[in-house]
Structures are given as C-alpha cells and as structure tokens.
C-alpha cells in the first residue's frame, strides 16, 4: 500500500498527476468529438449526395482504423507538417506538437465517427412534426436545430454517448505510447523503478475501473435528470 501512497518512496503523487492528465485528455476530446459527430450525422442526413457519401465515408473509415494508428498519424503527421512549413519559412525547428493535444485530437476524431451513429439514431427518433412545427414557426435551420431538435435529441443520445465516453476514457491509455504522462505511463514509470509489476498494473486496472464506475454513476444521474419529465407520478 505504501507503494502507491504519498509518503517517502510512495508513487501516489505522480500517479495522481497521471490520473489528472488522463482526465484532461478525455475531457479535451469530448466537446470536439461531440460537435464533429453531430456535424457528421447532419452530413449523413443531408440532401446533398456528396455530403452524405463523404460523411458516411468518414464515419466508416474512423470506425475501422485502430485508435492507435489515428493517434500516431496525428502526432507524427502534425509535427511533420509544422516542421515542413517552418522550413519553407527558413525557420529551423524541432518543435513537435504536444502529445496531449495530438492524443485528444486523434481520440476526438474517433469519437466523432462513433458518436455520429448515436446522433443519427437520436435525430431519427424525433418526430417529423417537430421539424415541421419549427419550420411553420419560421425558425431558420440553425435555430430550429438549436432550440427545437437538439434539446430533444440530446436526451435520446445520452445513453449511447455515455457508453462512448467510457470507451474514450479507456482509450486514453493509448496516449501513453506517444509519451504523454497519463496514468498508464506514470504506472509504467513506477514499475520501471520498483519492479513491482503485478501490484502496480493491478492498481492501474483498478484506477481505470474507479474512473469508469464514477462515470457510470454520474451518467445514470444525468439520464434520470434528462428524462425527469417522463417519470410517472403516483
């Protein structure tokens, strides 16, 4: 227990900071992924055939490509692009994109692909009448989406998005492979110093389980709150 404690020789401090980095990567990826996902879903429902094909292609591609490959491609690709454009400008630099930024951006691209499916289902679950009512009120497209459709779609999407959040939380462990000091990497560092493989990796698993359990608890509350108007009062 003193191995993961905060006393002398304990790794509690660095493990805790790793846990915060893990949360940071996940929380940064979430809003971007949600927004991209909604855009992709709207694209897949669009009247334009080109937009439909492109959005569906995006969703299928990023559901098929391993998350780790996306992370590597973004991490190395962005650094590469920056260095290329810098050398165009005759600036010598070995600057690389921060791992946290690359990791959460890559994970948000993946999250977008999966969440577009959820958004599609939620948007399809809203009656035609709602769209027609918004139109007959003279609301322009964006406003009808923002005021009428999305508040209702969000409730339908919430359970599915919650599952994706938990998957996202676990996928953040992959950013340890591009040297982000997240929880997984801090555990690896502690292992390298102490050689307590089994205890520390078990602790890592339990740490993530704690995060997912807390998420499940909060999501359950959110679901109840979002559908509180449906609760039948005795």
């Amino acid at each position, binding site marked *: 227990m003193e191995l993961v404690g905060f006393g002398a020789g304990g790794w509690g401090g660095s493990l805790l900071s790793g846990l915060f980095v893990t949360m940071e990567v996940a929380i940064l990826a979430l809003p971007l992924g949600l927004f991209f996902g909604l855009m992709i879903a709207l694209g897949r429902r669009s009247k334009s055939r080109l937009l439909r094909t492109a959005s569906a292609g995006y969703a*299928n*591609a990023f*559901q*098929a*490509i*391993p*998350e*780790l*490959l996306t992370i*590597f*491609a973004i991490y*190395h*690709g962005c650094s*590469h692009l920056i260095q290329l454009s810098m050398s165009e400008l005759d600036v010598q630099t070995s600057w690389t994109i921060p791992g946290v930024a690359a990791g959460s951006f890559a994970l948000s691209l993946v999250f977008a692909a999966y969440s577009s499916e959820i958004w599609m289902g939620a948007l399809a679950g809203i009656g035609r009448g709602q769209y027609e009512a918004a139109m007959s009120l003279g609301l322009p497209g964006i406003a009808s989406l923002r005021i009428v459709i999305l508040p209702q779609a969000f409730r339908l999407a919430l359970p599915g998005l919650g599952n994706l959040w938990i998957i996202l939380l*676990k*996928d*953040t*462990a*992959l950013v*340890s*492979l591009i040297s982000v000091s997240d929880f*997984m990497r801090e*555990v*690896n560092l502690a*292992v390298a110093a102490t050689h*307590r*493989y*089994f205890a520390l*990796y*078990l602790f*890592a*698993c*339990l740490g*993530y*389980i704690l995060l*997912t*359990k807390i998420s499940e608890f909060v999501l359950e509350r959110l679901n109840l709150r979002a559908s509180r108007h449906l609760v039948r009062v005795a």
Partner: protein
Amino acid sequence: MDTSLVIENAGRLYDGFKLTLGLVGLSAICAALITVPLVLGLRSKAWAPRVVSQTYLTFFRGSPLLAQLFLLYYGSGQFRPLLEGLGVWWLFRDAFFCSVLAFALNSAAYTAALVKGAIDALPEGQWEAAAALGLGWVATLRKVIMPQAIRGALPGYGNEIVLLIKASSITMAVTLYELLGVVKVVYSRTFDISIYIWAALIYIVIVSSVRVAFRVLEQSFFRW
C-alpha cells in the same frame, strides 16, 4: 503518395498482416471458449457464479486492454517460480501467447454480455414450449434457444471481431510487431507519414471484408 514505400516494405507488412490475423483468429476462438462458462455463470440461479462472472465482466470491461496486457505479460514474470512449477512458464514468457490470452479474456467479457443479452431477449414462451415438448436442458439450449440467440447476437459479434482487429494493434507495447507495429518501424526508419495512410487503407479493407462476411452470414445462414 508513391507506392514505392509499400512495395519496398511489402514483405514486412505481409508478415505483420499475418501476425494480426493470427492474433485475432486465435483470440476469437479462445474468447468463444471462455464465453460459455461466463454466460452460464451470469444466468445461474445460484448467487456465487453470478457474482464471480459479474466481477469478471466489471474488471475486464472497466479497464483498458493495454493495462490488462501489461498486467498479464509483465505481471506474470513475478510468479515465475510458480508458473515454472506448473510447467506453463514457457507460455507466459511468450509475448504472442500473453497477447492472445489478454485479448481472449477481454473479448470474452464483452461477448458474454452480448450473448446474455441475446438470450434474455428471447420470450419466456420459448423455454416453456421446449419444456412442454419434454426437451432436456441441453436439447433446449441446442435446438431452441441457441439458434435464435446466435441470430440475435450476430451483428454485435461482428462488431466485437472488428474491435478485436483494432485492439490487436497495441501489441507493440509488449514487443510484438503486428501490422501497425511494422508500420511504426517503417515510419521511424523513413519518417514518411504516407505509410500511416497506407496502413489506414489496409485496416479499412480488412474491417470492410469482415463486415461484408458477417452481413452475408446474417443473410444466408440465419434467415429463418
């Protein structure tokens, strides 16, 4: 995008591809075997098997596969005397075996939840009808329940296989270089990011073929 990078490294990429297929195939078979006792445990009337299976699901579905892989591969080293005594150390020393085991244990947890859901979704009348026909427990499962449950679980199982294919790309963390591992090595030699695009295309082709295969399976073999 020139193809020379792929052509030069075709042999390596093919080796990585074969390793990916081997990992996925073997893990899927082992996962299917582990799924059976898990589902029985989850649906058991006694509380002990239920708690054990449920704890198993919580553990393997609640933590990242990467952490589980590290736990198995590096963690088993601490139990070397014990494992040597049991005569299985040569297995746990091997990164391929540890990866297959980690994937199988992980995938079995998801598959068990899937199969349990498919069985629970069947109406009670199916069990009652089978009982009324005087079918025994094994015959009920084999002739009545499983054919319907498999049909219900098939699309989800296809997704699970796709997830397994994607998950297999993490074994480079335990020194096993499958397709993505090879790609990473090629990148660090050439610093040519187009290799990642090629890799993405290869994965899209693999996953699309699996999806098509499952769709054919759904439409041809399970059409009742």
